[in-house]
C-alpha cells in the first residue's frame, strides 16, 4: 500500500436533493478532497454541513450529481459494489437487528463478508474483548444500552479488517466511558493494522486526535489540515477569565458571548470562563467588557480555530442565541427547594434501575444529571416527570407529591425528550399550537404565546418540523416545553448530536431561563456542559456516586482543575471498582 496514493479522491462533487416545498437543496457543494491511506481522518462541521451525505457517497449509497469520486482507486460511478465489498461503513444509527442476539448480528455480517470459520473465532474473541460485550453475546441487540449498541455496530463493521472504515458520528449519544472505549478500538486498529479511517464528529477533542481534519459547512469544504496547524489560526486570541466574586461562570459567559462584536466564543470551564477574542476587536474594548476582571492567555486548541471558522462563515445566522423573554414564574430565584427526592427506588422485576437516590433542587437552579448509558438517569428522569411511578421513596415536584397529584404536577413542568419527540409531519406552528392546547391554553393567549415563542426561538412558523436541522428541532422542542411557562424544565440529553454553535445558543437560553427563575434539570453526555450547571449529580448502576457543584465533584475526583470528562470517568470507575459486579447491572 503506497503512502502517496490517496485512498479517497473527490473531484468537484456536488449533491442536491429536492427541498421540501419545492426547489433544490444543495447538501454537498463542489467538494474536492484527497484522503491519505493508513491514517485517521476527521470530518467536522455543524449540522447540515453535508458530512453524512459525503460519507454516504463514499459508501456508494448516493450518487454525486456532478464530479468524480474514487474510493480505493475505484471509480464509484462504475463499480460501487466492488467498493462496498471491501469497505466498512457505520451509519449514524447502525442497523442492528434488534431481534437477533449479539452473536447472531456479528455472524450475519461475518457471513456476508465471507470471514472463514477459523479466522472468525479469533476475530470475534478480540472484538468482544475490545467492546466488552463478551458477557452479552446471547442478549438480543434490542436490549443493549445505547453505548453498547454503538460498540456492537462498530464490531459488525470490523468483523473483517476493511480496506477503509467510514464512521458517521459514532459517538453521538454515547457516554464518556463508552466513547473512550470506542476510540480506543479505532486507535488500536489504525496503529496496529494501519487501517484507514474517515470519521465525522461533532466532538473537537476527537478531531484533535486525527492526523488530518476537514472542516465543512453548508456543503462546502472550509479548511483542511493537520489539527495543530489549524489551531494556530486562533493563536494569541485565546484567554481565560475568573468571574468576579458572587457571580457565576455562567453569568460571565453569557455576558461575553452576547458581545459578539468583540468575542468569538466563550464557555464556562472549572469555575472560570474560556473565551476567544475577535481578531479585529480592540483589546481595550474587550477589557472594558470584562470590567476589571483579569484575563489570562491560554494555549489555543482546535476547537478555538473551528469556532472562529464557523462564526466567520455562518455570520449571525445559526449563532445568535434565541432571545427568550418569557414571563418569570411566580416565586423568583430562591433557596426554596422545588424538587425533593428522598430514597427514590425503582425496580423492574428483580432489576433495580434506581437504588435510593436523594437530592433537592432549588428554584432557579440548573441541575445536571450525569452518568453512563444505563446508569438510571432516564429512569430517574421519567419518575420526576410523572411518566413512571416510583417503587418506593418520596418524590415532590413543584410542591406537589407525585404520588397523589400527578396530573396537577404535570401542568407545572415542561419536558424535552431525548431525541426529537414532536410530530414530524406537522409544521412548527401546528406543533406549538397542539402542545399549547394540550396544556390548556386557548384563544388569544395561545396565539400570542405561540407567536412569541416562534419569535423568541427564531423559528419559521410554516416549516415542516421533521426536516428541520437538528439544532432547530431542539429549539422547537424547547419552545414547546416552555409554552405553558412551567416552573421546572426537564431536558433529557438536549444537546445530543447538535453542533457547537447550536449548543452555545442552547445554553445561552438556559442561562436566561434560570435567571428568570425557571428551574432546570438536564442530562447530558457532553461533560464540558456540566460546567454550565450549578450542581451536578453523577449516577451509575442506579446509585448516586457524587453530588455537588462541578468544582466540588472534580475535587472529589482528585483534580479540581482538571476537565470534567476525566473527573467523570474517575468517579465512575472508582464507584465500579468498589461495588465489583456493577457492570452487570449497568447493562
Amino acid at each position, binding site marked *: *500500500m*503506497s503512502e502517496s*496514493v490517496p*485512498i479517497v479522491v473527490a473531484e468537484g462533487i456536488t449533491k442536491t*436533493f429536492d427541498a421540501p416545498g419545492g426547489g433544490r437543496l444543495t447538501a454537498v457543494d463542489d467538494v474536492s478532497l484527497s484522503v491519505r*491511506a493508513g491514517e485517521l481522518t476527521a470530518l467536522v462541521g455543524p449540522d447540515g454541513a453535508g458530512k453524512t451525505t459525503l460519507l*454516504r457517497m463514499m*459508501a*456508494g*449509497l*448516493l*450518487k454525486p450529481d456532478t464530479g468524480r469520486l474514487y474510493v*480505493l*482507486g*475505484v471509480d464509484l460511478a462504475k463499480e*460501487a*459494489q466492488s467498493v*462496498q*465489498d*471491501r*469497505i*466498512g*461503513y*457505520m*451509519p449514524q*444509527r*447502525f*442497523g*442492528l*437487528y*434488534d*431481534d*437477533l442476539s449479539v452473536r*447472531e448480528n456479528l*455472524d*450475519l*455480517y461475518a*457471513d*456476508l*463478508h*465471507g470471514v472463514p470459520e477459523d479466522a472468525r473465532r479469533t476475530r470475534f474473541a478480540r472484538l468482544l474483548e475490545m467492546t466488552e460485550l463478551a458477557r452479552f453475546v446471547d442478549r438480543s441487540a434490542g436490549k443493549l444500552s445505547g453505548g453498547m449498541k454503538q460498540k456492537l*455496530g462498530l464490531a*459488525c*463493521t470490523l468483523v*473483517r*479488517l476493511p*480496506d477503509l472504515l467510514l464512521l458517521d458520528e459514532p459517538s453521538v449519544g454515547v457516554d464518556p466511558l463508552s466513547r473512550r472505549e470506542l476510540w480506543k478500538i479505532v486507535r488500536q486498529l489504525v496503529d496496529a493494522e494501519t487501517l484507514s479511517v474517515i470519521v465525522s464528529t461533532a466532538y473537537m477533542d476527537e478531531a484533535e486526535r486525527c492526523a488530518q481534519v476537514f472542516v465543512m459547512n453548508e456543503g462546502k469544504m472550509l479548511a483542511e489540515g493537520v489539527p495543530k496547524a489549524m489551531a494556530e489560526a486562533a493563536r494569541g486570541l485565546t484567554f481565560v477569565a475568573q468571574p468576579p466574586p458572587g457571580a457565576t461562570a455562567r453569568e460571565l459567559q453569557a455576558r461575553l458571548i452576547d458581545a459578539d462584536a468583540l468575542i468569538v466564543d466563550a464557555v464556562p470551564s472549572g469555575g472560570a470562563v474560556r473565551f476567544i477574542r475577535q481578531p479585529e476587536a480592540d483589546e481595550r474594548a474587550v477589557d472594558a467588557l470584562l470590567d476589571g476582571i483579569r484575563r489570562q492567555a491560554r494555549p489555543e486548541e482546535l476547537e478555538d480555530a473551528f469556532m472562529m471558522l464557523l462564526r466567520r462563515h455562518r455570520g449571525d445566522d445559526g449563532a445568535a442565541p434565541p432571545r427568550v423573554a418569557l414571563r418569570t414564574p411566580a416565586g423568583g430565584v430562591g433557596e426554596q427547594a422545588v424538587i425533593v427526592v428522598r430514597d427514590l427506588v425503582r425496580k423492574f422485576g428483580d432489576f433495580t434501575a434506581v437504588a435510593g437516590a436523594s437530592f433537592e433542587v432549588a428554584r432557579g437552579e440548573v441541575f445536571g444529571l450525569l452518568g453512563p448509558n444505563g446508569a438510571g438517569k432516564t429512569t430517574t428522569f421519567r419518575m420526576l416527570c410523572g411518566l413512571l411511578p416510583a417503587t418506593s421513596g418520596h418524590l415532590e415536584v413543584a410542591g406537589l407529591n407525585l404520588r397523589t397529584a400527578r396530573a396537577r404536577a404535570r401542568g407545572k413542568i415542561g419536558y424535552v425528550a431525548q431525541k426529537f419527540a414532536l410530530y414530524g409531519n406537522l409544521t412548527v406552528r401546528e406543533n406549538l399550537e397542539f402542545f399549547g392546547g394540550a396544556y390548556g391554553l386557548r384563544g388569544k393567549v395561545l396565539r400570542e404565546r405561540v407567536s412569541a415563542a416562534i419569535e423568541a426561538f427564531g423559528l419559521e412558523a410554516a416549516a415542516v418540523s421533521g426536516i428541520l436541522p437538528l439544532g432547530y428541532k431542539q429549539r422547537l422542542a424547547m419552545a414547546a416545553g416552555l409554552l405553558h411557562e412551567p416552573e421546572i424544565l426537564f431536558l433529557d440529553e438536549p444537546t445530543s448530536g447538535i453542533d457547537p454553535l447550536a449548543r452555545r445558543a442552547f445554553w445561552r437560553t438556559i442561562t436566561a431561563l434560570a435567571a428568570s427563575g425557571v428551574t432546570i434539570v438536564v442530562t447530558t453526555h457532553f461533560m464540558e456542559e456540566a460546567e454550565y450547571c450549578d450542581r451536578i449529580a453523577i449516577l451509575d448502576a442506579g446509585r448516586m456516586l457524587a453530588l455537588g457543584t462541578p468544582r466540588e465533584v472534580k475535587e472529589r475526583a482528585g483534580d479540581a482543575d482538571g476537565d470534567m470528562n476525566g473527573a467523570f470517568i474517575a468517579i465512575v470507575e472508582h464507584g465500579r471498582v468498589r461495588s465489583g459486579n456493577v457492570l452487570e447491572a449497568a447493562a
Partner: protein
Amino acid sequence: MSAFPSSQRAPGFVRRFVALLRKETRQLLRDKSNLAVGLLLPVALILLFGYGLSFDVKNAPIAVVMEDRSPAAREVVEGLRGTEYLAPVFASDMAEAERLMRAHEVDGIVRVPTDFSRRLNTGDARIQLLLNGVDSTSATVIEAYVTGAVGIWAQHRADRAGNKASVGGSVEVMQRVWFNEAGESRWYLVPGLVVLVLTLIGAFLSSMLIAREWERGTLESLFVTPVRPLEIVLSKLVPYLVIGGIDLAMCLVAARFLFRVPIQGSLAVIVTASMLYLTVSLLLGLFISAVTRNQFDASQLAMLASYMPATMLSGFVFDLRNVPAVIRVVAQALPATHFMGLVKTLFLAGNNWPMILRDCGILALYALALVFATRARLQKTLE
C-alpha cells in the same frame, strides 16, 4: 487500482444467501405477531370457511296464510312441507304474516287466496308469494323451491285427473350439475380458501418486510456489504414460502378429510400451482414494500391491492361471467383470478392441461416481472 489490492475475497452467492436466509428465518421465528398471522389466522379461516360460510338455504322460515281452506289448498301447502329447504309456519291472516316478515322471523309469505279452489277449476288459480328481497340470493332460492313444489303438486294433480289436459307434449328438464351434483357451496368455497390464505400470507406479511428494514435503518448497513439487492429479495421470499407451504398443507388436509371436498386433479399439480401463486403474491408484497418504504402504507396498499380484490373480484364467490366487461378486464389483470379459476378446476373438475399450462404460464410471467420490478426498486441507494 493496483495501489489498493483487495485484502480479502468477497464470499460467493451461496454463502451470502445462506447468511441472509438464516437471519430472515430467525427474525420470523422470533416474531409472535407474524407467526400468529402466518399460522393461526389460516386455521381460523379454514374453520370459518368450512363451517361458517354457506350459501345453501336450508329450513328457510316462510309464513303460510290459508285464506282458502279447501282440500286442494291444503294439498298445495302440504307440498311445501316435504322439503328440507323450507320450514313453513302457519299465520292466521296476512296482517300477522306481514308482521312476522317485518320482524325477520320469516323470509317469505305464501298466501293461498280465498278464490284459489274456485279458480283452480277454471285453470287460472293463483298462489301469492311475498319475499323479503333484501337477501336477494336466499329470496331467489326460496322462490325456486316454492315454484317447484307447486309445480310438482300441479303435475300430480294433472296425472291423477287423467291425460285430458295434455293435448300436446311437454318438455322435461333433465338437470345435471357437473363437478358438484349436490350443489354444495362448501365445495367451491374451500378451494377458494386456498387462494385467500395464500394471498394473505403472501402479500400482507411480506409487504412489511422491506419497509421495516427501511424504517429501522438496517438496510443502510446491509447495503455496504457484498450483498446484492436480488439476494435480499430472495432471502425474504424463502421463509415465507415455507410458512405458506404449511398453510397449503393444512388447507388441503382440511379440505380432503374435514370437509370431504373432492380433489379430482393431481395433488402434485395443485401443490405446484399453489406454490407458484404463493411466490407471485409474496413478490407482490415485497414490491409494495420496496416502493412504499413505510410499514403502514405498505400494509394498507397490500390489503387494498391484493387481499380485497382476491376476495371480491377473483371469481371466488361472485361469478366473473356475470360482471360488466370493464370489471372483467380488471379481474383478469389480477393473478388471483387466474389461480382461482385454476384451483377450482383442479379440485372439482380434474387436470385440464391446457388450462394448467396457460394459467401457470401467466403466474410465472407475473413472478418474473415482479422479481425484476422489485430488484429495480431496491437499488443500493438511499435516494
